[in-house]
């Protein structure tokens, strides 16, 4: 799992020059990673609890699972959009150069969040289901795995968004 983190780090390293020009994008890396980790943890915990109390059947197509996925995705997206809009003004005040138009900033963050949340929420659900079937503890297993993958996906999704929006 540490190797996945190192891979993410390697990706960051190759983007180092981009971050020199766009410090604001580096500043949101921890935020996107944390979002992925937290949403993954919430979805994972809820599904684990549901499985344990019996309100969720251990099948991926259970409607409660889908509901948790959707809500996790939407809530995470909303949280980050609200923050992103505020940050466009706040980061420069904190002394972090923005160097991006509002449209570019918002596009990068939105695309990145969709990619990250779109990967992490189903993953959290699948890992919870697997962990439940194998009798593994959600705290020791699900959450660390989801956070680590979330960290890597966070960095990767930012890299993809930056390229797609055409900054790098």
């Amino acid at each position: 799992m540490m190797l996945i983190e190192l891979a993410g780090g390697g990706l960051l390293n190759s983007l180092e020059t981009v971050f020199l020009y766009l410090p604001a994008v580096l500043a949101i890396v921890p935020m996107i990673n944390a979002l992925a980790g937290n949403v993954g943890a919430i979805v994972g915990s809820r599904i684990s609890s549901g499985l344990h109390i019996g309100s969720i059947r251990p099948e991926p197509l259970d409607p409660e699972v889908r509901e948790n996925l959707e809500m996790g995705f939407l809530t995470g997206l909303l949280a980050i959009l609200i923050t992103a809009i505020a940050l466009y003004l706040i980061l420069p005040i904190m002394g972090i150069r923005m160097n991006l138009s509002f449209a570019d900033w918002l596009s990068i963050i939105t695309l990145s969040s969709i990619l990250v949340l779109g990967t992490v929420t189903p993953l959290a659900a699948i890992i919870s289901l697997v962990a439940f079937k194998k009798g593994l503890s959600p705290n020791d297993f699900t959450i660390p795995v989801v956070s680590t993958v979330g960290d890597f996906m966070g960095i990767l999704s930012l890299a993809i968004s930056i390229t797609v929006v055409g900054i790098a």
Partner: protein
Amino acid sequence: MIPQKGGGTLNKLKFLKEALPVLTLLGIIEVLTGSVLSRSGFHGISGLIALIPALISIRGNVAGSFASRLGSMAHLGSFDPMHPLKTSKDGILAAVLLSPGLSAFIVIAAYGFALLFGVSMNFIAVLAVVVLTSITSSIVLIFLSIYSVVVSFKMGVDPDNVVTPIIATIGDFTTVFILAGYIALWEVLF
């Protein structure tokens, strides 16, 4: 936040109402971490940036397991909130010894990859900064964990529900802050 049978719109609004403020707040705290990171001058030590996600994640995992183990010990009675340091001695020792070891290992692995892919990395600097950061932040986070578990116990709150996410987020910030400090120290000395 326990899932109910037969969801519907009411359940979804509850999810949103409960999760949204927490996610937004944690996001904002992480942005503070990010801004310290942006201004930490890590550019001065080549290859350091590659270790940052791993460093933060090790910190989160070790501190988180320590905090959750403390919580379990508290429930079982082998951790006495009245004498926190005495009863958590072994856990402290394990956590403090584990972190620098893990960090050094990661740095060495990273250096291996750097050599393999022809990426430049200032091995000595990265090793020094990363190991120092992990030792310092471990000590800080351990005391923070112990304090949080004691406080939540005295307030009658189950530490398992509250301490772990808080420690994770504060841990990120503390680690990056300490990292910035050591980077600055290194730049000044060399």
